């Protein structure tokens, strides 16, 4: 009797999981369709392969659990925004850690030399730090436009703003980045 109940339970579980998997096949399709673009964007924001994998996993985990497994209305917008937020959170944590370490080491004073100025890695790191500090609306536009290389129209659709507004936000973001990066140099 008990054995029968268990087997019926297993059968039921299997049926339910099959139904859910049928419903959630779109997650794999989304992964197939937008995976490459997402990876490119995450790689450019984070610059570290393990971090990229973690952010990507987080994004799809959040997508799978969106309102109890429901499909968001605009899947592309959802995954790009989520991936962006996850990546920026990771980047901010990294920047904070780096600052804590650099203040702990007294000798690790920030020295700027012409050679360092031309150092591509240094430039990339300082730009990433600055992007992480930007206000959300400007940061979203700069990452989607310059790192994910999406068009203004696509960005507008993802963020729910017009293409012209996205263009203005990018211009503003660039102005702020310019000021911050030159200040960082002067430090």
């Amino acid at each position, binding site marked *: 009797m008990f054995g029968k109940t268990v087997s019926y339970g297993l059968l039921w579980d299997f049926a339910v*999981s*099959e139904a*859910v*998997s049928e419903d*959630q*096949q779109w*997650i*794999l*399709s989304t*992964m*197939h369709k937008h*995976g*490459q673009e997402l*990876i490119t964007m995450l*790689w*450019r924001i984070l*610059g570290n*392969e393990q971090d*990229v*994998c*973690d952010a*990507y*996993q987080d*994004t*799809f*985990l959040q997508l*799978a659990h969106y309102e109890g497994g429901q499909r968001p209305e605009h899947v592309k917008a959802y995954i790009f925004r989520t991936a962006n937020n996850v990546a920026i959170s990771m980047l901010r944590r990294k920047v904070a850690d780096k600052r804590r370490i650099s203040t702990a080491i007294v000798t690790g004073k920030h020295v700027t030399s012409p050679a360092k100025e031309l150092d*591509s890695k240094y*430039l*990339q790191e*300082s*730009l*990433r730090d600055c992007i992480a500090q930007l206000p959300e609306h400007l940061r979203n536009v700069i990452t989607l436009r*310059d*790192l994910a*290389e999406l068009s203004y129209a696509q960005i507008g659709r993802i963020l729910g703003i017009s293409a012209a507004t996205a263009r203005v936000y*990018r*211009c503003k973001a*660039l*102005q702020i*980045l*310019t*000021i911050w*990066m*030159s200040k960082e140099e002067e430090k």
Partner: protein
Amino acid sequence: MTGINKNNKCRRIRGWLSEAISRHFDPGAVWLQNHITNCPRCQRRLVSYGKVNLAISAIKSQPHKLDLLMCANAQAIGVLKHSLRHAQKAKKLRKIRPEPKLRERFGKYTSSAVNVAACIAIMLLMKIGVFSSMDTFQTQGQKVIKQYYVSRIGDDLADEIFPKDTELPPSANARSVANV
């Protein structure tokens, strides 16, 4: 007054510099260069914009490992539901490699395609141009000869030589309609 004007110009140019760097308009415009050569503030800004642009380009030019997409997919699929993990699509995604976009794949053929299109366009234009000129030339020639005959031998004989029901080329008809 001049100082205020200069400040206003400076402010306007500050807004345009980012656009200039993004190549939305020519940063080498004479008026822009004239201002920048005389304004140390704008010079500093231009250098800073250049640096941001350089940093963005450096970030974009950094390649990642070819198997990054595969690894990321495998890791992400690993935390999904059991049934999804074992789906046929999931197996494919675990082995997927990045593919260049269609635009990038055929990007190298763009210049050749543009050249061929330009050649075809030129040939079409030449063909249309040459034939229409020939038509016009033929019609005008016929008219001149008919006029000559009319003046020499009179209308009746000229009409016999050049009957009125003789079909004129289409371009000539169009011209005569336009003239009417």
